[in-house]
């Protein structure tokens, strides 16, 4: 099926969503997604950041769709034309959504463990306004421990439901869910029951914000001071094949996560033993450094290439900076 997104045409399988078609093209035209998670069935459609405009429904029925649609849940039709960043309407709506998502978000990034790898932070940076127009108190919740390794800080939650789907689909039973309604909704366990499951740690990885954090890593370090290294071990859990990313500070493994792709989605879910209990280099076989996009703050000061000195045209200045220039280009 042929679909055109922001003027770029691509052929995709029937049943592909607009978002996944855009991801196949890649680049700037990929709509941001806060709740959609490609590894989780039925996720998406809730945060509304991936709204796009369908300017032509299909070859058969060329009428445009009356409203903006959630690209993560809308499947492509043959001949569909989609506008994402070329439509001012979409940009405006997305800006509104970002503002709305940040209304009740505490903006405590300086003390949040997710900072640096937070989807909401990136989204706010790219699409949000510098100031909010919201002048009221934000809703707050007490921090609660769900299980002995995971802490839930509901104040930061944007209710993407990813952790609910994870518990439903990855673990064998779910004991946490959404309580209450509207902006009082909260993720919680039923009467402080503990989440105890071999795969429960994955809710930390799928959380787009810092609402679910790893208690073995909390306040240990900022992610951009740590060095990600791919590693694997022979995990005896039947559903886990032990492929992880180790986050080093010096010689010490500070935390273990699943390997995440460019959209921040894990490649394979890992078990709790790998995540929480194996924190020695001797437990692992190192595969090599983890490649992180050079746009990410995790790569701060680790540029893929060194920018050339600004002076390029004035021969006198080039001569004066020759030594510096040579040193920089040699790297």
């Amino acid at each position, binding site marked *: 099926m042929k679909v055109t997104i922001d003027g770029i045409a691509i052929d995709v399988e029937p049943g592909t969503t607009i978002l996944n078609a855009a991801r196949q093209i890649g680049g700037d035209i990929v709509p941001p997604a806060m709740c959609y998670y490609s590894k989780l069935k039925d996720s998406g459609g809730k945060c509304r950041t991936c709204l796009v405009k369908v300017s032509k429904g299909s070859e058969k029925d060329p009428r445009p769709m009356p409203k903006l649609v959630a690209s993560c849940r809308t499947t492509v039709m043959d001949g569909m034309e989609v506008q994402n960043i070329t439509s001012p309407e979409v940009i405006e709506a997305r800006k509104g959504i970002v503002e709305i998502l940040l209304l009740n978000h505490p903006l405590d990034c300086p003390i949040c463990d997710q900072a640096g790898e937070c989807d909401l932070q990136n989204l706010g940076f790219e699409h949000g306004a510098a100031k909010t127009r919201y002048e009221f108190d934000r809703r707050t919740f007490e921090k609660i421990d769900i299980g002995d390794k995971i802490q839930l800080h509901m104040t930061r939650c944007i209710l993407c439901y990813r952790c609910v789907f994870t518990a439903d689909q990855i673990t064998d039973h779910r004991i946490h869910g959404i309580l209450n309604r509207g*902006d009082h909704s909260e993720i919680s366990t039923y009467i402080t029951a503990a989440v105890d499951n071999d795969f429960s740690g994955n809710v930390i990885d799928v959380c787009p914000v810092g609402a679910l954090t790893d208690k073995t890593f909390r306040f240990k370090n900022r992610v951009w001071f740590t060095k990600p290294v791919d590693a694997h071990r022979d995990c005896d859990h039947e559903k886990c094949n032990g492929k992880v990313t180790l986050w080093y500070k010096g010689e010490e493994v500070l935390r273990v996560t699943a390997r995440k792709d460019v959209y921040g989605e894990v490649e394979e879910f890992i078990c709790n033993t790998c995540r929480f209990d194996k924190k020695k280099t001797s437990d692992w076989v190192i595969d090599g450094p983890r490649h992180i996009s050079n746009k990410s703050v995790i790569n701060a000061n680790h540029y893929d290439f060194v920018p050339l000195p600004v002076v390029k045209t004035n021969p006198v200045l080039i001569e004066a900076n020759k030594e510096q220039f040579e040193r920089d280009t040699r790297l």
Partner: protein
Amino acid sequence: MARKLLLEHINVPGINTFDVYRSKGGYASVEKALKTMTPDEIVEEVKKSGLRGRGGAGFPTGMKWSFLAKPEGVARYLVCNADESEPGTFKDRYLMTYIPHLLIEGMIVASFALGAKTSYIYVRGEMMPQIRILERAIAEAKAKGFLGKNILSTGYDLELYVQPGGGAYICGEETALLESLEGKRGNPRIKPPFPAIAGLYGCPTVVNNVESIAAVVPIINEGADEYAKIGIGRSTGTKLISAGGNVKNPGVYEIDLGLPVEEFLYSEEYCGGIANGKRLKAVVAGGSSVPILPANLFLKTINNEPRLMSYESLADGGFVSGTMLGSGGFIAYDEDQCIVRNTWNFTRFYHHESCGQCSPCREGTGWMEKVLHRLEHGHGKMSDMDLLVDVSKKIEGNTICPLGDAAAWPVASAIRHFRDEFEWHVTNGAEAVTRNFGLAHYADPLPKKEEPVA
């Protein structure tokens, strides 16, 4: 006096019992439909009648029925949406309380037309008396052979169940209703797939309002052509309007669609004018979700034509100067009512009832409520009005279900038409707490066509 189709026998004593209802010609449509018509003929008849959904959106009922997927070997369901919880609307409750057999009769005919063997009436949890009334009525009908196995020896089986809801407004949205009916949290589903393809338990399902289903009875009894003669244009038949607010005679009225609003509001037969000799300031024509209109724009359209109670005429002028028929929850405001307070009250309702699934509605309704609360209590700012309009635009159309639109429209329209009053609340903050703005110019005759109304 116009002929009543639904409420014809409403004043007959004991009409809520099977025997009295039957003696007044009740269940004739079941006999006619099951014995002389095929399901397709019934659907065709309903299509021809031009009946439009009475729950608010006004989607043609016959069309909805014909969209129902009919795969082999898969059950189909008819669900009656009796989760009436729109502020201002109380017509379905009235119908179920006083003439429950009309709904059951309609359910039998509609279920037969759609091929449903099991049908549900999803009633809002607060309506416990109505649930008991319906259950008693179902038991009576079953005892007389109108429900259960082999109805009237035609070989058609139908089980009808009443399901109480938990009392959430959002469960009146059809997909949230189905989720709730399945025993899950009442969050609206993301469409597509539509319920006509995959609804209750993943099976093709039709969800109809109580009044739409009840209206099938006169359509079958009298024929689609007779029914379509009533009304005007594409608004055919009769409609129950629940009039409330500052009218002299509040209550449920059955009107022919196309009745001039002036007649409905002021004639003794219907509302009887505004109570206590006051003057009309504003009207919400179809339940809290539809745009509010000032008296002058409500009685006359922008082109100075009299407005009629019909889907088209009330919507004349679009969102700039029109409103919607909605679910027929007619609320009139007299000169002593404060529009800011009313808007705040509506928004408070939507804030409370938002399911919290998608972000614009979850966060946006709360934001609007807080800003309006501030305005109402005299602490507002001049920039608040633009802020509210902007927030309502960010919500409208960007949500999973229509609750976001329903929350945004009353705010946007109140500011569009009553901006003076909002501004007065800012400039005279202290005074606004103790007295209301009054009628001002909201009932003045409309200016000539050339000048746009601010």
